[in-house]
């Protein structure tokens, strides 16, 4: 009781003296500083932090003639959803976060979304493509990524261009996101009459893929679609190479997008990845940095080129900033209204959220590209190979 009274008194004091009024906007999120999702989550957090530094460097967010600095509050969710709800509640109630950004990965996003919804806080989700989360009746959730059902459609089209009759092996992690992605593309492939040579899911902690690879060889598969997150994807790629599996086309989720993937050397060549964003993208932003400016700033700060998780983190901040500035207020209802009405292009590409109450907040504007690791002048580089309009190199097959 007493604590509540103090808080009340304090907030009245703040309200009464505008000169002393809060000049920061607090944004909360959790990141996987430990655990299996660490690699991708760190990239996302760096993107968000770079956005904060850019905004604060330019004098902050302007709301109704006043400038607010951005304050980020973040905790470690250990890559597990056990703690996500506790931490998000803490962010809202104790740290007084006015807006939220999601944790990384679909499972954690779904868990955090329940809290943000219960407290009526706007949450921009990045690093969570699973569509199911947006079909549960949320009103304050806004998805930045293209949904999971779109992930491998481009890869399938590109593959069919090279080989009209592929024998496809689906080999994928048994997590919600990868399963949803493969389910969608498998249905498409089956409808088109493609041969499904193998269909295997594996646990995210798998390190020995030789049983699966031997099965693929026995089934005479010549294309592989699947993967999961960083650790398992990198392992699978390396073992495909070592066991000389005769697959001519490999598209893996998430893992090959990270710059770290180049450490695999020759194993990486020819492996493609559906990507939310690539540094080669040529979008003309309505506001915010250009693609080149973002890539440069990120590389300068972290000494590694940004991949789509990092870009997604930055874009989450940018979109939120735009909505707040347009609303001229930090009131969640008004900001949500701006987000609902938004249809913009940033360095990240187009962003538009579904207003259908059955799938509110689902991303409907953004498109994905397919990137492939290729060897150029003795160095490994990631080239965009699909869609044709955006490609920077021809696909290796």
């Amino acid at each position, binding site marked *: 009781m007493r604590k509540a009274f103090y808080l009340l008194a304090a907030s009245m004091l703040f309200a009464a003296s505008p000169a002393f009024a809060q000049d920061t906007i607090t944004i909360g999120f959790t990141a996987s500083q430990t655990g299996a999702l660490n690699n991708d989550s760190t990239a996302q957090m760096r993107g968000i932090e770079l956005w904060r530094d850019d905004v604060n460097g330019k004098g902050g967010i302007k709301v109704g003639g006043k400038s607010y600095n951005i304050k980020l509050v973040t*905790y470690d969710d250990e890559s597990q959803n056990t703690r996500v709800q506790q931490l998000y*509640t803490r962010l809202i109630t104790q740290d007084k976060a006015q807006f939220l950004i999601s944790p990384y990965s679909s*499972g954690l996003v779904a868990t955090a979304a329940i809290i943000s919804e219960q407290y009526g806080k706007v949450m921009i989700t990045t690093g969570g493509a699973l569509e199911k989360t947006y079909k*549960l*009746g949320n009103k304050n959730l806004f998805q930045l990524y293209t949904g999971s059902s779109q992930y491998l459609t481009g890869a399938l089209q590109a593959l069919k261009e090279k080989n009209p009759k592929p024998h496809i092996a689906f080999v994928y992690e*048994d*997590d919600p996101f990868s399963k*949803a992605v493969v389910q969608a593309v498998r249905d498409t492939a089956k409808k088109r009459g493609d041969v499904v040579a193998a269909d295997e899911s594996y646990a995210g902690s798998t390190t020995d893929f030789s049983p699966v690879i031997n099965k693929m060889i026995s089934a005479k598969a010549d294309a592989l679609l699947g993967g999961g997150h960083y650790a398992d994807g990198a392992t699978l790629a390396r073992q495909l190479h070592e066991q000389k599996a005769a697959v001519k086309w490999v598209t893996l989720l998430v893992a090959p997008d990270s710059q770290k993937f180049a450490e695999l050397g020759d194993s990486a060549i020819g492996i493609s990845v559906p990507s939310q964003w690539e540094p080669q993208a040529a979008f003309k932003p309505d506001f915010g940095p250009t693609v080149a400016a973002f890539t440069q700033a990120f590389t300068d700060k972290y000494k590694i080129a940004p991949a789509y998780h990092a870009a997604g983190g930055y874009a989450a901040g940018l979109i939120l900033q735009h909505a707040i500035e347009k609303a001229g207020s930090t009131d969640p209802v008004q900001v949500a209204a701006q987000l609902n009405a938004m249809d913009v292009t940033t360095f990240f590409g187009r962003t538009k959220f579904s207003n259908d109450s059955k799938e509110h907040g689902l991303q409907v504007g953004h498109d994905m590209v397919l990137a492939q690791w290729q060897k150029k002048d003795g160095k490994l580089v990631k080239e965009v190979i699909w869609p044709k309009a955006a490609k920077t190199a021809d696909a290796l097959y």
Partner: protein
Amino acid sequence: MWRRPFLWFIVAAALVYALYPYFTDDVGMRESLLLAAVYIILASNLNLMIGYAGYVNFGNIVFFGLGGYICLYLVTALHWHVIPAALTGGAAVSALALLFGLGILRLRGAFFALATIGVNQAIQQLVVNFEPWGGATGIYLSLDAYGPLGGPMQALWTTYLMIVAVTTASLLASYAIRHSKFGLGLLAIGQNEDAASVLGVPTPRYKAMVYSASAFLPAVAGGLYFFKSGIIEPSSAFNLQTSIEAIVMVMLGGSGTILGPALGAFLYEELRGFLLTAQSFSQFQLVIAGALLLLIVQFVPGGLLGWVHQRWPRTRRWLE
């Protein structure tokens, strides 16, 4: 038995526990207390196995996870109300445990401990491959499911109170068993199983019974907890790490006592929560928790309550 002051103490503590965050309207506090309450349920029921019967159950989390799955399945697929769903989950898991118990309780000591790990892992993998429960994706709750409890916001309070009620029931059950013939039999098994058997304790039946009993309330709690979370996945439902942490909690507070495991669970959870959110420690939270545990095991093997009992022997009588 209601003349015992200790019982009233449990009830009073539970009331304070339930009502304190309600009256201060401190939601952050409630979330932290809720997690601690869940751990108290796990630790307190695990204590029936470890502390009373002397059997180390590594896979105790399997009850919690299965209970959660059954409850969420009933709520989403058959549109049951959460309370009957959680209770049905508890009953089903308890029955299943009785069945399993008859098999693996023939093992003793470390062999039993290893078998419980096997059971947990096998069931987790079965659920991963079981499509009606969503396989590896798990079950997602629609926000409509909170309707019968007055919307998502109110549902959080309601589930909190329900979980505290289960916590209280766990402590009371722990007390009742300890002071019954059944409990004495279990303690005898824990001391020396062969001797107990010779003296007429029906050891196989008692062991299966306690295994089954220790499954019921954790399964109910699992149902409520995952209902509150809105999502259940095999990896979080059958997390072996949590299972082992529950053992740590029992030891921290003092195994074989009634209040000890609860105290251990509460302290452990608050400590982990603090280390996790304190910036300077978050890198080393595992190291600190581990070092602390090492010191306790080596120098204070009786746990917190054991130490208190040793230091002030009189407390044994009223602080159980």
